[in-house]
């Protein structure tokens, strides 16, 4: 049996799927995660505790989960997309009542071993269910506004719930990621423009609905120097730390601003600043290049997939991933307001790492099943 035959087969054995795993992608992921470990080691002032060690354990768990997801048949994901979504939505509603608020705004449910953030699960669930929905529609169907009502509802419900938490960053992530899915599905450009205009017009209303701290964040973003010791502190200190890194950085474990704790909570959202302070412009470019490589790789996987579901999932995952990266780095460099978004694979934190690795699991899943054709209604279809 030749390899070609294998690829054409919809029914691959587990072993066959395993050999189809995308090792370059795994290598890229491991490279990023290793940088993350190094930075957490540095953030702990040259110690594996309290962060680096635990992050490694999480990564190992996440990697197993990722491989499991990658090796599962893609039709399973298509079939249970809505169920997955429904569970996520129920959890999201549950945290409204029973969740714990900690560290800013994100709500979680305390399970025995880890904190579950339903909003993170929802990111994946939304990509899957939108992909499933649009997989069924022809390009013509997409042009009908009535066909868009359901997916809009799919997006609106969790976005509204997350915004209520209130977690501006995640809701923006959900919204922009979904918009990308709509765009890829073929929704006309003018509809986006129309929605955009309506959105613009409703800014004053939205502004009044924002929480005070959210307003402050936007105001400090607009002029951080006006209040260097107050809310502008984070942005300014972050820029100072970045700028003082220079071209080659201060060296590993030598970042003065981060180690002297001018950067608060450096192990989480502002870890890029610390990285760039220690490794400079060269290191910064290298890291951004790694992320860009993964994005391009994801794009290639999407283009290579023969099923629309696969294409949409791949692009959706990669877009969400990119949004994480962009929002985080742009935030610490003072390009956008401070929104609590971690740097994927590097920031300390379990849930975000799980989300990203689950996403990559799906991406690899799409790659493994790249030649599988799936009918509109989810049954397999041999070519």
């Amino acid at each position, binding site marked *: 049996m030749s390899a070609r035959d294998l690829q054409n087969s919809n029914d691959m054995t587990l072993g066959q799927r395993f050999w189809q795993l995308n090792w370059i992608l795994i290598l890229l992921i491991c490279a990023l995660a290793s940088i993350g470990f190094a930075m957490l080691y540095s953030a702990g002032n040259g110690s594996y505790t309290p962060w680096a060690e635990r992050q490694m354990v999480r990564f190992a768990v996440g990697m197993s989960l990722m491989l499991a997801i990658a090796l599962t048949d893609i039709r399973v994901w298509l079939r249970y997309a809505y169920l997955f979504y429904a569970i996520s939505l129920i959890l999201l509603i549950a945290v409204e009542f029973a969740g714990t608020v900690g560290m800013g705004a994100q709500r979680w449910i305390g399970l025995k071993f880890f904190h579950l953030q339903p909003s993170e699960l929802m990111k994946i669930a939304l990509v899957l269910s939108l992909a499933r929905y649009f997989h069924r529609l022809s390009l013509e169907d997409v042009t009908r506004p009535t066909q868009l009502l359901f997916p809009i509802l799919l997006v609106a419900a969790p976005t509204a719930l997350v915004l209520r938490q209130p977690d501006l960053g995640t809701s923006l992530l959900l919204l922009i990621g979904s918009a990308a899915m709509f765009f890829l599905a073929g929704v006309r450009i003018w509809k986006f423009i129309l929605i955009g205009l309506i959105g613009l017009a409703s800014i004053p209303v939205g502004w009044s609905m924002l929480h005070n701290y959210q307003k402050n964040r936007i105001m400090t973003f607009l002029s951080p120097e006006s209040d260097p010791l107050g809310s502008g502190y984070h942005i300014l200190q972050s820029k100072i730390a*970045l700028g003082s890194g220079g071209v080659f950085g201060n060296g590993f474990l030598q970042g003065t601003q981060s*180690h002297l704790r001018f950067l608060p909570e450096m192990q989480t959202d502002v870890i890029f600043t610390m990285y760039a302070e220690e490794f400079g412009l060269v290191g910064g470019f290298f890291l951004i290049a790694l992320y860009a490589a993964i994005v391009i790789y994801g794009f290639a996987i999407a283009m290579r997939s023969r099923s629309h579901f696969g294409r949409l999932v791949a692009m959706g995952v990669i877009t969400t991933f990119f949004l994480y990266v962009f929002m985080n780095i742009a935030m610490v460099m003072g390009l956008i307001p401070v929104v609590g978004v971690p740097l994927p694979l590097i920031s300390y934190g379990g849930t975000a790492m799980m989300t990203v690795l689950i996403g990559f699991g799906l991406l690899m899943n799409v790659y493994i099943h790249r030649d599988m054709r799936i009918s509109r209604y989810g049954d397999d279809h041999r070519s």
Partner: protein
Amino acid sequence: MQPEKLRVKSFGRRAAVLVGGKLALVGVLCGRLYYLQVLESQRYQMLADDNRINLRLLAPPRGHIVDRNGSPLAVNVQNYRVVLVPEQALDVRETLDRLNTVIEIHEYDRRRVLREARRRRAFVPITVRENLSWQEVSRIEVNAPDLPGISIDVGQSRHYPDGQIAAHVMGYVAAVSEKDLTGDPLLELPGFRIGKNGIERQHDLALRGTAGNSQVEVNAIGRVIRELERSEGRPGKRIVLTMDLRLQRFITERVADYRRAATVVLDVRNGEILAMVSAPSFDPNAFNEGLNSKAWKELIENPDTPLNNKVISGQYAPGSTFKLAVMMAAAEAGISPDHRVFCSGFTELGHQRFHCWNKHGHGLVNMVDGMRESCDVYFYELALKLGVDRIAATARKLGLGSKLDLDIPGERSGMIPTRAWKRENLGKSWLKGETLIAAIGQGYVLTTPLQLAIMTARAVNGGYAVLPRLTRETIDAGDETPTASSFPHTGISKRARELVMHALDEAVNHPRGTAYRSRIQEPGKAFGGKTGTAQVRRITMVERESGVKKNREKPWRERDHSLFVGYAPVDNPVFAVSVVIEHGGGGSKTAAPIARDILRETQRLQLPQQLADAERKK
């Protein structure tokens, strides 16, 4: 398959647009990174250093002050402080309670520590008590294991080994007050002391030295992580005074029996002050340790004004010591020393009677007799011949009536009245009777003890207008003390000076002289001088009728001030002295013996050295 192909094409196009957009955003990130880390790097590097580097000032040790022989007058001693670091103490209250069983802690100290512990960051040490005795230090060290967060810290504090002996010259140091701030960051150091009076204030900048600094890296909450750079400051300069501590001590003990006294000894050839004693005195060490308000109030409200340096800021009627200036003016005006006046005990001017101190009268006296016996009537006659303005002109040449630029603060100018002065300031014309009163050093005439000593010095040093000084600045560069001839000449003729000196000699060494009983009989050490008795209040007609009371019979406050100015040795003047004993009675009775003892001691201590110096110069 057509629609499926369309869908794939549309998806491909749109995915490419999306990825293109993402790469563009990646470009933006890279551009921003380049902007921050390359273009703006220097600015942020500077801000980063601002963030993390703190400049800490290191207080330089304050310069010592020594007397002319190198004996210490002001030094720095180790000051043991007990400090508490709240973050190391498990419970501040409990630690203080335990410390209280080891050394005594006042309630207000305790409250202050608790207040500061709340306000400051937990790693900032708080001083619990200062100036611990060696015993207290040992007790704390022994109990150290039970006192977490408590440690002993060594600082420097100013100490005056002789305390009260030279307090007025030395001044004192005290905490910097709001109005002392000049922008020198040193002044803002906690616990920094600044010279508040006397030499300490005058030479504060030189004594202070230059601050060193240490650059330390601090973290975001200000904790010191490490020292990056340290530059030691320059310690303050050593100041050498002209004073002789031994003489200062001798005089202090000699006048100890009197409630208020002021005396100064200086070198007539260069104005160097050998001793300056103002009684009562105060303890300058008390200011350094921090005076409580009760002690401060006692000092301020004491009627004997212990903080006041009476030698330079006490203004006294000079009494008969002023006759030195009047006689000099008369000799300068060409009045013959043989001019005789008959003293019957008083002079009449219009309807007013001006009495001589000797109510029986001195009989026929010439100028030297009049000076020797301090005949007031003779000087009334001289005053009428001279007029007040000519007396004033000579008095000014002798250094009276204006400040003498002494190098410590607080000098007063005294008062030498003239016709013009009275017209301008009191709006009245001068009365002849006032000239008579002025001639015997009463009325408007006021002088400081320092001015009296300078007057004497200028009369006997060859007529040079020496000015007083307390510091020998150039001691390190060899003996460059000025000689009399480096001062301008007063312009007073040799004939006049020699006549006055002859009279001053007789006033002490002639059997009829007012200070004859106080003369020094040791060969070569005899002194000349003039007594003075300044009335504190006018003697009324009624009192004079019933017989003037003896000073002893009067209440202390109404007794006369006792004065003496003198110089020694009489035939080769080197030292001048002035003595003022407030309410001490007659000049010949109280001040003259003190002056004698001072001049004898001064010559014993200083003369061999002075003569040797003079010999070497030749």
